[in-house]
C-alpha cells in the first residue's frame, strides 16, 4: 500500500530521473519501510518523503527545464514571462498519475477529518458503542460488567451473558498507556482504518483488557491488534465478517486461546434489557428453577432431574427444598441428561449435601473463591455417605459437566450414560453493537487433578450406555450396590 503510493509519487519526478534512479529510490523507500516500523517512525518516514519531494522536485524540474530556471532572473526585471515547458502534449500516463495523486490527497483529507472528529469532542468512548449518553465515570466503576446506563439486573447467571458492551473506558486508557496515547486517540494518524472498524477494534481491546483472565496475555493481544491495524493489515478484510475472522485469527495467533473470538452477525444480536431478565427469572422460578423431577423411586432411591444449575441467589431455596425432600433416601440419582449448565455456585451448593467435610469443586473457568468449596457438612443432611449416580448424555455441558467431573474425580459418584459435550472454557460473550460481539474466557483455574479437564473431549462415564438406558442402568446399579452393602441402609451418620 505504502509502496504503491510512493510509486505514484515518483511519477512527479522528471522522466529521465525516474528512468535513471526511479528503481533505486523505490528500493530505498522499501528498505526504510522494512526497517522503520512503529507508528512514530512511520510518521517520520512519510514526513521525510514529503519534505524530500518539496526540496528535490523543484530542483530536478529546474534541471530538466533550463529555460524555466533561466526565467527567474528575467522575472525579476518586472516583466511577466510565459514559457512553454514541453513541446509535446501531456502524456496520458502523466494525466492518470495526476488524477491518482489528487484522489490520494482527497482520501487523506477525508480520513484525517474522520479521525480528528472524535478528538474534538473530548469524550472518547473506547469500549462503548451504544447510543445511550454515557457518563465516562460510570463504566470505570462498573467492574461487574453490566451496562453502565442501566440498573444492575437481578439475575446473576444472566448478568454474565449480559456483560458489558459499555466496557471500561478506564481500562481502555490503561491498556494504551504503553503507547502513551489514549485508546480513543490511537486511531488518529494511524493507517486508514474505517472509523466503524476502529470502534469495534477499540471495544474488543477494552473488553479484553477488562475481562481476559491473563492480563499480560491480554496486553500482548491488544498490542498485536494495534500493530496489525497500523500496518494496514486490517484493511485487507473485504467485509465485516472477514474483519471479525481476521481479528479472531490475530488474537488466537498471539494468545493460542481458541476461545477468544470476535463474532459478527448479519442479523442484529439480541440486546436483553433488565425487564427481559426479570421476565426470564420469573418464568424460570415458575418452572421450579428447572428442578424437573424430585422423586423417590422404589427401593428408596432418590431421583433428581435437574436441567440447569441456576444461581443460588435466585434458586437457592428451591434447591434446598429439593435436597431436603431427598434427605432420607438410600441412594441418589442426579439426572443431568438434559442439563445445559449454569453457575458453579449452584454446583457447590448441591454438592455440599454429598460430603461430610468441605471439598474443592474445581471449575476451570473460575479462580478459586470461598464458593468453590462445598459448605459441608450441611446440618441435618443424611446424604453424605449415600451412593450417588449421575446420568449424562452427549448434550450434558458446562456447569453440569463441572458437577459430573468433580464428583467423578472425588470418587463420590458413578457416572452412567454417554460421553458429555465437552464445553469447559467457553468465553463469556460481550456485545459490542448490533452486529459485533467478542467472546472472552474470563478465568482459568489450575486443575488439581492430574489429567486435563473435559474441554473438547467431554467426560467419559464409568458405565457407558445410551442416554435412554442410563436411568434403568443406574437403578440396577443402585439396587445391586445397596444389596451388596446393606449396612449403608441402616448406617446413619447423624
Amino acid at each position, binding site marked *: 500500500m505504502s509502496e504503491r503510493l510512493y510509486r505514484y509519487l515518483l511519477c512527479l519526478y522528471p522522466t529521465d530521473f525516474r528512468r535513471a534512479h526511479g528503481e533505486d529510490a523505490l528500493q530505498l523507500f522499501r528498505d526504510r519501510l522494512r526497517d522503520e516500523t512503529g507508528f512514530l517512525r512511520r510518521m517520520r518516514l512519510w514526513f521525510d518523503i514529503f519534505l524530500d519531494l518539496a526540496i528535490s522536485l523543484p*530542483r530536478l524540474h529546474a534541471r530538466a527545464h533550463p529555460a524555466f530556471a533561466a526565467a527567474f532572473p528575467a522575472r525579476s526585471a518586472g516583466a511577466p514571462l510565459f514559457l512553454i515547458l514541453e513541446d509535446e502534449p501531456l502524456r496520458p500516463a502523466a494525466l492518470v498519475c495526476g488524477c491518482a495523486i489528487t484522489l490520494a490527497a482527497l482520501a487523506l483529507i477525508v480520513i484525517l477529518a474522520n479521525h480528528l472528529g472524535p478528538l474534538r469532542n473530548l469524550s472518547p468512548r473506547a469500549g462503548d458503542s451504544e447510543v445511550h449518553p454515557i457518563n465516562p465515570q460510570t463504566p470505570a466503576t462498573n467492574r461487574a460488567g453490566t451496562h453502565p446506563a442501566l440498573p444492575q439486573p437481578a439475575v446473576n447467571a444472566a448478568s454474565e451473558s449480559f456483560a458489558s458492551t459499555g466496557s471500561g473506558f478506564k481500562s481502555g486508557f490503561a491498556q494504551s498507556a504503553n503507547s502513551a496515547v489514549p485508546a480513543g486517540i490511537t486511531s488518529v494518524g494511524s493507517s486508514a482504518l474505517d472509523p466503524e472498524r476502529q470502534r469495534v477494534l477499540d471495544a474488543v481491546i477494552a473488553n479484553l483488557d477488562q475481562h481476559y483472565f491473563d492480563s499480560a496475555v491480554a496486553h500482548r493481544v491488544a498490542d498485536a491488534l494495534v500493530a496489525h491495524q497500523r500496518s494496514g493489515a486490517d484493511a485487507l478484510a473485504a467485509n465485516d465478517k472477514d474483519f471479525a475472522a481476521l481479528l479472531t485469527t490475530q488474537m488466537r495467533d498471539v494468545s493460542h486461546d481458541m476461545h477468544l473470538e470476535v463474532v459478527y452477525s448479519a442479523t442484529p444480536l439480541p440486546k436483553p434489557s433488565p425487564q427481559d431478565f426479570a421476565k426470564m427469572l420469573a418464568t424460570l422460578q415458575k418452572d421450579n428453577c428447572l428442578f424437573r423431577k424430585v422423586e423417590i423411586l422404589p427401593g428408596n432411591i432418590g431421583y433428581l432431574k435437574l436441567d440447569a444449575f441456576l444461581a443460588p441467589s435466585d434458586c437457592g431455596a428451591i434447591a434446598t427444598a429439593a435436597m431436603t425432600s431427598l434427605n432420607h433416601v438410600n441412594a441418589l440419582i442426579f439426572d443431568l441428561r438434559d442439563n445445559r449448565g449454569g453457575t458453579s455456585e449452584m454446583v457447590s451448593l448441591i454438592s455440599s449435601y454429598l460430603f461430610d467435610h468441605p471439598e474443592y469443586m474445581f471449575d476451570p473457568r473460575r479462580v478459586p473463591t470461598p464458593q468453590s468449596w462445598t459448605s459441608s457438612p450441611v446440618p441435618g443432611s443424611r446424604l453424605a455417605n449415600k451412593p450417588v449416580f449421575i446420568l449424562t448424555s452427549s448434550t450434558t455441558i458446562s456447569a453440569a459437566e463441572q458437577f459430573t467431573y468433580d464428583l467423578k474425580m472425588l470418587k463420590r459418584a458413578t457416572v452412567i450414560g454417554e460421553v458429555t459435550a465437552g464445553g469447559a472454557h467457553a468465553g463469556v460473550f460481550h456485545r459490542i453493537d448490533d452486529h459485533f460481539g467478542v467472546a472472552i474466557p474470563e478465568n482459568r483455574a489450575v486443575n488439581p487433578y492430574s489429567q486435563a479437564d473435559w474441554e473438547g473431549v467431554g467426560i467419559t462415564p464409568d458405565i457407558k450406555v445410551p442416554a435412554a438406558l442410563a436411568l434403568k442402568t443406574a437403578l440396577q446399579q443402585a439396587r445391586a450396590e445397596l444389596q451388596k452393602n446393606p449396612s449403608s441402609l441402616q448406617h446413619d451418620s447423624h
Partner: protein
Amino acid sequence: MPKQKLDPLPAAAFQILLSLAEEDLHGYAIMREVADQTGGRVRLGPGTLYSSIRSLLEAGLIEELDSREDPSINGERRRYYRLSPTGRALASAEAARLADLLRVARAKKILGGGYV
C-alpha cells in the same frame, strides 16, 4: 541536460562524499551513514539523495560500481558508489575551507572549544 552546479558544494553532496570516505556504499547505506555522521539530524530522502548522487557522478566526484547484493539486507541487487580521487580531493578542500571558517569563528569568540 546541464550539470547541477557543485560550487559551492551543497551540504548534502558533501555529506555523501564524507560517507563514502571509508568504504563503497549503496544508496540506502549512504543514507544511513549520513544519518549516523550527523547524529540523526540529516535523513536524505530518495529524491535528494539520488539527485545529489547524479550530480556527483556527472562531476566525476564519485564512481558507480557494478551492482551487487548486500548480504546484511536482502537478496536485492544494489548499485554501489565509490569516492573518486577528485572527489576525495574536493571533500578534503571543503573540509579545509570549513576548518578555516571554524578558526575564524573561534578567534571571534563565536564558538568555544579547542583549536582545529
